[in-house]
């Protein structure tokens, strides 16, 4: 196998083999599902009942508790996906490429969700569903990058070539992430600035912040669950001709 299995002493790379990772992912899924539920239920409760209405936007601001975590995850997943794709490129490890393709649909979904909830929020507050300001436009480009990544992978039959080509696309697209994040700072936009930054205290009430963070962790855990589910399918599909998959399948069938 052309894999890097880290010698005999350190077995650090053991789980970079799809065969070893497949059962590990299966074991992790229930735990992350529980974690996702543990964050979602109080997250929604805080979002709808504990967080007070806003002084300006009343109840309508509550869409933020979906919009902001979705937007954060859309950027975060992209960086993780590009890192996996880059690892696949450098180390030739198939599992990294599989992880990258497992993350892409969830990232695209969160990007779409951020844009959609943003439109729903923008109409009553700003007075427009959509404006071509730097923040909105760069987030739309992120959606196209995700779609491009997915389609490029689907367009090339040979998995290794597909992984390599899409990895380059993913890495080039990383440039867009700081542009999205800092767009509200670098240019004047209709979109407001960041409420939560590393450099200063958050500009929102504490209970609103709690709701926002709970929902973010909920989305994060959800992402891990669906990525693991998807990567397991991907592993089976790409390794279907191997001995171990045949064995695993007959074992599960029994």
């Amino acid at each position, binding site marked *: 196998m052309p894999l890097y299995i880290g010698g005999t002493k350190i077995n650090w790379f053991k789980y970079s083999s799809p065969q070893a990772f497949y059962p590990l992912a299966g074991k992790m899924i229930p735990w992350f599902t529980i974690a996702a539920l543990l964050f979602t239920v109080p997250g929604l409760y805080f979002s709808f009942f504990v967080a*007070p*209405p*806003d*002084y*300006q*936007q009343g109840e309508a*601001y509550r869409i*933020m508790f979906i919009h902001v975590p979705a937007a954060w995850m859309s950027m975060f997943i992209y960086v993780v996906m590009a890192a996996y794709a*880059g690892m696949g*490129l*450098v*180390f*030739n490890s198939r599992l990294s490429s599989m992880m990258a393709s497992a993350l892409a649909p969830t990232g695209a979904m969160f990007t779409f969700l951020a844009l959609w909830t943003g439109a729903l929020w923008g109409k*009553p*507050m*700003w*007075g*427009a569903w959509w*404006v*071509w*300001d*730097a923040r909105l436009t760069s987030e739309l480009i992120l959606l196209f990058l995700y779609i491009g990544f997915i389609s490029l992978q689907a367009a090339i039959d040979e998995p290794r070539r597909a992984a390599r080509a899409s990895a380059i696309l993913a*890495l*080039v697209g*990383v*440039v867009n992430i700081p*542009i999205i994040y800092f767009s509200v700072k*670098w*240019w*004047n*936009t*209709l979109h*407001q*600035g*960041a*409420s939560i930054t590393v450099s200063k205290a958050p*500009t*929102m*009430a504490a209970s*609103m912040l709690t709701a926002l963070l709970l929902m973010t962790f909920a989305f994060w855990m959800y992402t891990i669950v669906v990525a693991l589910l998807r990567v397991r399918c991907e592993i089976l599909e790409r390794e279907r001709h191997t001995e171990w998959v045949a064995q695993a399948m007959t074992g599960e069938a029994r």
Partner: protein
Amino acid sequence: MKSRHKRLAFIVAGLAGLGGVAALVLNAFSDNMVFFFSPTQVFAKESPEGRNFRLGGLVEKGTIKREDDGLTVHFVVTDNHKNINVTYTGILPDLFKEGQGVVAQGRIGPDGVFLAEEVLAKHDENYMPPEVKEALDKGKADSIKAKANSAAAGTSATGTTTLISQ
């Protein structure tokens, strides 16, 4: 150098180069990437002349005047340096009010009044319950009052007045 080290170096160099190119391009285009122009920029002739552009700023307090038809509204957009008079006919967003951020699309008429075709409200990144906002406003009003009182009492140095108001 192993081939994977070479690949890694290639990717890192490629990304660094790409980042540099992106920075230069964005820098070159930065004038075209603004969503709106402030009144100061408009007075400095930075906004396009003879065609539509977006004007952004705050609605100056006490300047909103509605005409009898109920739809036409006049107000002043300010960035605390320069002011521009704006006329708009149509439905305003809920957040439109005095002191609020606003972005208006339209053009400057021959009389120097900005004729808006679309008015969008811009809100800031502060979220808080109404009670907190009231408390904050009250605190601000109190400190302004204290400043005024101390000014009336003859303390002219600004340093002293801020000390007192705190």
